[in-house]
């Protein structure tokens, strides 16, 4: 994003636009950063510093004294079963929030753009696109309450009633509280449902950049739909695939609300995700130092993932240039 059109005006990059001429320095520009810098310092960096520091202490919270712990919290973290379990779940969350939506999104976007848009009219395809996007703007909490209604245990759950009608015998599955597999699967389905519209919209926008003549030429050469998809569509929209993968991976690492509302971490803490674990420890735990360690670990992981992604992207861009 930082690359400005340098060809046009190579001189521009480092020189401030000189307005007004009376005051040539950059000092005046710095002043505009003050409110933003103060706010970000207070709301973001103060908590980061406080929590990272706290991760080297034991602290019950409130007026209790702090005890220096050295690396104890960090060592404990890596042998903590609940923490490790919460990371295993994050892999499943990544499947549900990154991999499945990206793959499905590619197929749906290509379907809507290529087939529906070109053969059945642009209006229908943008209507369908809006429909796929709808869950994205619904509050996750509201979507979660809706799903927990559908997944109610016993015979008054909507899904159980469906299955009862389908199978002919009474179905009473406790989807959310019964066992790990159904609870985690429910959380994943909710995430896919919420997430699917995002890649669809981004990929469809990307497809508009692709020159239709490329497709026509390929068609003339006898390439079928799938061959065209693989040889033209995918390489052309690769940057967008990348951005979607980056943003949704980071969102997956931070996921909280679906677990909080659907399973509350249960049954028996099996559907914990790291952010939920940190939240629980801060609220109910006996050592805020340990809670701060969990939160710091996630923060570090998120930042590392972001850096790796951006580096890979920069390298890919340089190769292209």
């Amino acid at each position, binding site marked *: 994003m930082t690359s400005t059109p340098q060809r046009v005006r190579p001189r521009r990059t480092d020189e401030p636009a000189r307005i007004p001429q009376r005051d040539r320095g950059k000092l005046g520009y710095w002043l505009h950063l003050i*409110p933003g810098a103060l706010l970000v310092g207070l709301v973001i960096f103060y908590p980061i510093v406080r929590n990272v520091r706290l991760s080297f202490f034991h602290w019950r919270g409130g007026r209790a004294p702090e005890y220096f712990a050295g690396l104890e919290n960090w060592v404990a973290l890596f042998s903590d079963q609940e923490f490790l379990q919460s990371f295993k779940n994050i892999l499943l969350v990544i499947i549900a929030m990154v991999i499945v939506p990206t793959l499905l999104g590619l197929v749906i976007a290509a379907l809507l753009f290529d087939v529906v848009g070109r053969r059945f009219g642009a209006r229908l395809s943008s209507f369908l696109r809006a429909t796929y996007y709808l869950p994205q703007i619904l509050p996750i*909490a509201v979507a979660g309450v809706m799903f927990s209604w559908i997944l109610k245990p016993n015979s008054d759950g909507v899904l159980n009633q469906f299955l009862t009608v389908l199978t002919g015998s009474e179905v009473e599955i406790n989807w959310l509280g019964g066992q790990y597999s159904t609870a985690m699967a429910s959380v994943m389905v909710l995430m896919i449902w919420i997430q699917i519209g995002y890649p669809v919209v981004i990929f469809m926008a990307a497809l508009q950049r692709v020159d239709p003549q490329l497709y026509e030429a390929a068609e003339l050469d006898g390439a079928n739909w799938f061959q065209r998809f693989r040889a033209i569509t995918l390489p052309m929209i690769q940057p967008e695939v990348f951005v979607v993968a980056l943003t949704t991976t980071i969102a997956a690492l931070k996921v909280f609300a679906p677990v909080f509302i659907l399973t509350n971490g249960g049954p028996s803490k099996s559907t914990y995700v790291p952010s939920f674990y940190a939240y629980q420890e801060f609220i109910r735990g006996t050592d805020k130092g340990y809670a701060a360690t969990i939160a710091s670990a996630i923060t570090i992981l998120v930042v590392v993932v972001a850096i790796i992604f951006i580096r890979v992207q920069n390298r890919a861009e340089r190769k292209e240039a």
Partner: protein
Amino acid sequence: MTAVAQAPAPAPSEGGKDRRNKARPRTPAEWVMLVLAVLGALAIVFPMLLLLLNAFKSPQDYANSGPLELPQALSFEGIKTFWETQNFPRALWNSIFISTMVSIIAVVISVLNSFAIGIGRVRGRTWIVLVFLMANLVPQEMLFDPLFQLYDDMGLLSNPWSVILTFVVIQSAFGTYLLSSLLGTFPKEILEAASVDGATRWRTLRSVIVPIVRPTLSVLMVFFFIWTWNEFLLPLAFLNTSDSLTVPLLLEQLNGERQTDTTTLIAGTLISIIPTIIFFLIFQRTLTRGITAGAVK
């Protein structure tokens, strides 16, 4: 921002370019793909249709019928109970107030930041953008406990301004990132013309730059509004009294109460969705333009 105006592309079947396509009749395979796309969309709206179908059943009707059956008679009992037991208008107002304030203030902060970064090209701007972006990267559980104590000391707990302050920072991170790269390509000629006319820096920002980037600012405002509206973890932590709840918090609380009747819950869920749907219908075009703004160069 450059790409994707999502211009209402001329319906391809009418365009002269696609004459060859038009001449070709739709194949069965294409019909199958259309059906698949429509089925997928149906699967997305299906849970909401279920809500609509069941929100108007009386508790007895709901207990005795399947979820796919039409209500025997239109009953507003669930909606009435929800309205009487919960202070929904208050939650709605809280949500509107918080989201509106955040979207306005966050856009102002984003403009100020990106003026220095994009137009002023201050030293170390790449790093400055990264520092602001941390607000977007850092998980909310990292913020929640220190901010809780901070707001407690400041007497801001259960006060909408605790949430407003927090999300102004988080949303303006994205705004700063987006606007900085946009203003980095702002035509220098215009700035110089303003300066020749004797405009001060502040006046140039207010009367020249802001009007030109206004479309982007309105997209940002719409998104800040929705993102803030949907937030859950930090509002849950900061807003604890019943008259400070936002819409998602109110519904979540209702969901947690054991004695809540199912039809009341369904009605409440439906009512909580309505503001979002209205917003979606009003701003659909802005939304589709905006979603791609950050992703497509």
